[in-house]
């Protein structure tokens, strides 16, 4: 291997690693706040990529109908709770708003010349379709069992993953999706040509990580989510409802997933079932961080990306094996060094 190849592999590794880092952070975030291991995280990535691909090819995507259907179920449940607890004008207006939003997106998807609109608008449309699904998924599948043991949550999470893969096949078909790069420019750094999409991925990832950091350290809403993760009862007594925290983290997880999908769609071809392996690598990163430390998880995920890229060069047949074997020494190390800490303080 010469220098040039090493740089190329490193470039690939960092690009993938940045995406894994985003997913690792998202998995970690959802886990600490809700105790749910978000297996469907990868489906948000493939949905993001494939929706973007569908929009770019000018087909109105059936995803809009799915959003509308989910929204209808969600609103029906809202109405049922209102029937039990009495009429509430504010909630009624909120229901109207949600339905209006879903309908508006359906109309936009059907009428806009999707292939011709600028790429930013296409990306926004994709995010607009996908992000509301996160909170609805939480509302429908996890909110009713929020206090169940972690194992039950995991089982439901796997079920949601399997269902989403199936629905993905139905919505997007078995063909892979690949989108146009954000720009065609390339940058030469000495002898090496950097792809502009690589820079996009790295830049957006770093920006997002910094934004997440600021949100959680500086804003009261971010602190509220952290508080809900630290002490659920304490948070409830401050009026931070676990439902709110769950919906907010799921919205964030879908946003991160869908955005990751849009970012890597021009680099790799994604299929309806590619999500699992992607989120599994993010999960390895999260495990390296002990499902607790955000910076370690991000660095771990980056390492996963690099190891994957270099093992592709030496032993491409074994690249997945090498990456997933990585988890074993870390699990051993974790189980040997960490003592079991009771969650309750005092």
């Amino acid at each position, binding site marked *: 291997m010469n220098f040039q190849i090493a740089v190329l592999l490193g470039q690939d590794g960092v690009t993938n690693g940045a995406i894994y880092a985003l997913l690792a952070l998202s998995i970690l975030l959802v886990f600490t706040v809700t105790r749910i291991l978000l297996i469907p995280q990868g489906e948000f990535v493939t949905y993001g990529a494939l929706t973007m691909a569908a929009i770019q090819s000018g087909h109105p995507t059936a995803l809009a109908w799915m959003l509308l259907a989910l929204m209808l179920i969600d609103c029906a449940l809202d109405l049922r709770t209102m029937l039990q607890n*009495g009429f509430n004008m504010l909630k009624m207006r909120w229901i109207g708003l949600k339905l209006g939003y879903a309908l508006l997106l359906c109309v936009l998807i059907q009428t806009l010349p999707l292939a011709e609109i600028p790429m930013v608008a296409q990306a926004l449309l994709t995010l607009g379709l996908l992000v509301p699904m996160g909170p609805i998924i939480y509302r429908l599948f996890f909110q009713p069992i929020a206090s169940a043991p972690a194992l039950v949550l995991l089982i439901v999470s796997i079920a949601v993953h399997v269902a989403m893969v199936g629905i993905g096949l139905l919505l997007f078909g078995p063909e892979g999706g690949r989108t146009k790069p954000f720009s065609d420019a390339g940058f030469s750094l000495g002898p090496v040509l950097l792809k502009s999409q690589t820079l996009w991925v790295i830049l957006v990832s770093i920006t997002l990580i910094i934004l997440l950091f600021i949100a959680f350290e500086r804003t*009261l809403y971010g602190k509220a989510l*952290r*508080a809900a993760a630290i*002490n659920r*009862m*304490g948070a409830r*007594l*401050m009026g931070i409802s676990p439902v709110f925290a769950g919906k907010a983290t799921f919205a964030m997880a879908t946003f991160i997933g869908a955005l990751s999908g849009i970012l890597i769609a021009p680099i790799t071809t994604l299929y309806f079932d590619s999500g699992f392996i992607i989120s599994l690598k993010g999960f390895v990163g999260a495990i390296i961080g002990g499902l607790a430390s955000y910076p370690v998880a991000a660095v771990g995920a980056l390492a996963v990306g690099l190891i994957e890229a270099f093992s592709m060069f030496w032993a491409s047949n074994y690249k997945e094996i090498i990456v997933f074997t990585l988890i074993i020494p870390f699990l051993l190390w974790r189980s040997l060094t960490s003592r079991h800490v009771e969650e309750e303080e*005092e």
Partner: protein
Amino acid sequence: MTAQTEKLLDVRDLHVAYGKVEALTGVSVEVREGQIVTVIGPNGAGKTTLLSAIIGILRSKGEVHFDGQLYATPDVEILVGDGLGLVPEKRELFASMSVQDNLQLGAFQRYRRGDRGYETTLAEVYSLFPRLWERRHQMAATLSGGERQMLAIGRALMGKPRLLMLDEPSLGLAPLITREIFRIFADLRRQGVSILLVEQNARAALKVADYAYVLEAGQVAMQGKAADLANDPRVIEAYLGLASKHQELLSS
């Protein structure tokens, strides 16, 4: 505190059951505006259960009226937003966050509703508990027991509650700190905060309160003006004890 002031909290015929065991049977409690009301009683009488049921942590049967509104199924987040605060026995602080963050989160409901006046409240809380100001950048987990209690009370005050419910605020505290905390209750009342106080330290509680309930085996066994109850022979025998005169000195 006369009968003309408005009923802030009016709990009627409250029943709570853990499975088949009734922890509370038909408890009715009232707190009027500007009052300090205390609920005393032995361990296991249902004092903590009563507070948890009022704020909606536990499911209950009965009526909870707060600020003139009936809450058929009390819901923690809604009641907190409407101005009811609870300082639980376990304090439930955010251990790995700073003191200042803990306090700011106390104002989360206000912040969410667009009330940005919480910086003023923060200054007020700091002037009430100067110790918290000194420790504002420390993790809550590093505080001493008394400081944690101050933080728990301060955090509840950040939400500007109209009624503050406190569960065993003197539990595990040194007598001098207990006295300091009880003095703060009187301060709070002067600022217009009503207080529902659950206490084992009956002497101190009866001293500071206007009205008192004695809870025994999930039922209200006695009630009356705190000063009257403090002189009631039955209460003296069961909860105050003639021997523990030194407590009186500490709570003065």
